[in-house]
């Protein structure tokens, strides 16, 4: 598409031109608008969503992730003998069965992705002010990956639900959920909310002018 800026080498942003872009429908609303005139979505007060909800959800997700790893995810009873397994324990069991591929998927979804997400969101929020090693484009890509991949961590919660529903053969074999299933589900939901409340336009705004409309109309 064609940019509205006069020069080919400088990209004019909606903020510089005195508009607030709607992230839902792309409409250029006048500065000061609270509700988008095209789609009716709420617009953030300064034209950008703040970082407070991002940090709040991220910390909540981190707190919920601790018991999710310490407490059992599954309780398996075979002929009256009950065995409890944590997230990591479940991965180890899969490796012992020789199901390396599935073990890797579960490890990726339940351990690698959540931890990488905590680090990535914190990194994106911290590096808004000041210099960074990653370019703007790279940080944008990082944000897209985080937003896309976060929901896939829910796999293990569904595995627990399916196993509990399926494996109920009276006394012989029964599988029941552990408390970690609930705290893990909460942790995934909270980090999804953290990623969703992050406004990627802050990455492109650069460090100097977070939250102000001081320059509207002065550049062409």
């Amino acid at each position, binding site marked *: *598409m*064609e*940019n*509205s*800026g006069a020069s080919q080498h400088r*990209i004019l*942003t*909606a903020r*510089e*031109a005195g*508009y607030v*872009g709607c*992230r*839902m*429908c*792309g*409409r*250029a*609303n*006048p500065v000061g608008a609270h509700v988008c005139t*095209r*789609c*009716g979505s709420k617009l953030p007060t300064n034209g950008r969503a703040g970082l407070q909800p991002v940090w709040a959800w991220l910390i909540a997700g981190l707190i919920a992730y601790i018991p999710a790893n310490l407490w059992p995810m599954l309780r398996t009873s075979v002929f009256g003998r009950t065995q409890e397994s944590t997230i990591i324990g*479940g991965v180890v*069991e*899969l490796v012992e*069965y020789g199901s390396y591929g*599935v073990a890797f*998927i579960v490890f990726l979804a339940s351990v690698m992705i959540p931890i990488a997400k905590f680090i990535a969101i914190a990194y994106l929020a911290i590096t808004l002010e000041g210099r960074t090693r990653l370019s703007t*484009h790279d940080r*944008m890509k990082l944000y897209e990956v985080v937003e896309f991949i*976060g*929901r*896939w961590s*829910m*796999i*293990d*919660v*569904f595995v627990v*639900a*399916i*196993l*509990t*529903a*399926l*494996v*109920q*053969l*009276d006394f*012989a*074999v029964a599988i029941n*959920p552990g408390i970690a*299933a*609930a705290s893990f*589900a909460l942790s995934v*939901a909270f980090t*999804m909310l953290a990623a969703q409340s992050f406004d990627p*336009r802050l990455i*492109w*705004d650069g460090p100097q002018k977070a939250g102000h409309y001081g320059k509207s109309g002065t550049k062409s």
Partner: protein
Amino acid sequence: MDSSSSLIVCPECDALHYDQDIPADSIGRCMRCGTVLAAQHAGAMTRITMLALAALVLMVAAIFFPFLDLRSHGLEHRASILDAILAFSRGPMIMLSIAVAVLIVALPVLRLLALVYVFAPMALGWHPARHAKAAFRFAEQVKPWSMAEIFIIGVAVALVKVAGIAKVEIGPAFWALAALVLITVLKDTFMCRFTVWKTLARRNTGS
């Protein structure tokens, strides 16, 4: 209409663009970050309506038909998606039961209904239904929380875990859900959010 309606703002990087009409079956990207800003597919509204209706039918099949069939030590147990939802309903884990129900059934079904409500009148060339904007906003906001495709992968993992202690067969509901996932992916590739909003706004004013 004022001049700002001929502009379009990139939702990811805030770059301002002139909103141009693009040729059929092509896409327009943001000059700065490459995000897709416009896409034209011939007959998109009709296709989305048909696919959403098909997905609703498959959803009903997926929920009520048996999903997996487990045999071990001479005992047999069948489970439907409904059973998976009710799995946590005993005791303090009921919240988790509700969460699973919301993520794999309630939200996908509500999202499909909202899409049919928005797109069916448009496909027929009528004015948008009342509250069509609110319905489409809901459908878009709910999208990341609608997790049928993640559930399918969960089933695959569960099958491997159970293989050691019992024999498991896949029931018809599994295939219904797999087809539903494919249809959802297909439907979302036809749908360009910004184009839908512009069409809704244009038809509402009657021009």
